[in-house]
């Protein structure tokens, strides 16, 4: 359980949770302000993250930057157009609007002591189990 990779991801997680909080993404009030277009600060957070991420991806590809663990060029992994992608995205959007929470922020909110996020987190675990089962069924037939 205690090895270099796990330690690294613990540090990544701590930094990510901390940044989600400082972004305001763990505040239901600020999420509702984004969805209702009252205050777009979270839009700028997401837009900056995506644009700089895109630039770094392009630079890595253009200059052939290598991953430290494999020594091979950093991979550009495209998730597939899987069956259920649209239906799943719709359900996710509904849940996001209903709670103001997404999987990453649910955890950061639990850490911040926001009790309601424990219920949401439980729901996400249950929904994920159900979704994995449905994915297996979708892949079979």
């Amino acid at each position: 359980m205690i090895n270099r990779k796990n330690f690294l991801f613990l540090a990544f997680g701590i930094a990510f949770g901390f940044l989600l909080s400082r972004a305001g993404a763990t505040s239901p009030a600020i999420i509702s302000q984004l969805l209702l277009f009252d205050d777009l600060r979270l839009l700028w957070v997401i837009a900056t993250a995506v644009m700089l991420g895109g630039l770094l991806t392009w630079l890595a590809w253009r200059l052939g930057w290598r991953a430290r663990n494999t020594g091979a060029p950093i991979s550009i992994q495209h998730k597939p157009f899987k069956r259920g992608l649209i239906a799943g995205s719709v359900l996710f959007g509904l849940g996001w609007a209903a709670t103001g929470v997404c999987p990453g922020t649910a955890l950061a909110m639990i850490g911040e002591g926001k009790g309601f996020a424990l219920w949401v987190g439980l729901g996400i675990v249950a929904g994920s189990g159900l979704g994995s089962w449905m994915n297996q069924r979708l892949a079979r037939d």
Partner: protein
Amino acid sequence: MTDALSSLWATFFNPLWTPVLVGALIALLAFAQRWLVDQPLSCSTGFACLAQRARPGKRRDRESDWRVVFLLGIILGGLLAALTDGVPAWQGTTAEFGRFYTALVPDSAWGAALWWIGGGILIGLGARLAGGCTSGHTIAGVAMGAPASLVASAVFFAVAVGTAQLAAWVLGV
């Protein structure tokens, strides 16, 4: 110099950082994962691992331990943020939830708990069917130019914004 340091120090304790700064730091963090271990940002798959581990009689898949450790880290990161933001602990007041969620979520304790669990089920189920969430599809996937992630992210936002606007109109908030 000391002025700059002390204002930086004060900024650290600010509960909300400048959006462009946080966005840039998230991009650098997500890219650091790809640079060091060639693994893009991912949250909802970790929840699927948790769900699998919760089932009795299933052997634990040690290869995915890091996913669960990452989720644990996010909780600790939230704790660290709450301990260093200089504002009182969360009370669940109307101001903290905002007028929209205060009006939307049922008032009774059990009604609210069911609402949060139901919403969580939609989020978890939706993320598994879509193959990712706002982390994997939006922050990581769109930055890598993945068409499926662009489509999924567009639907996430369109449905969430549409639903919230409709609900706000119906609730009159």
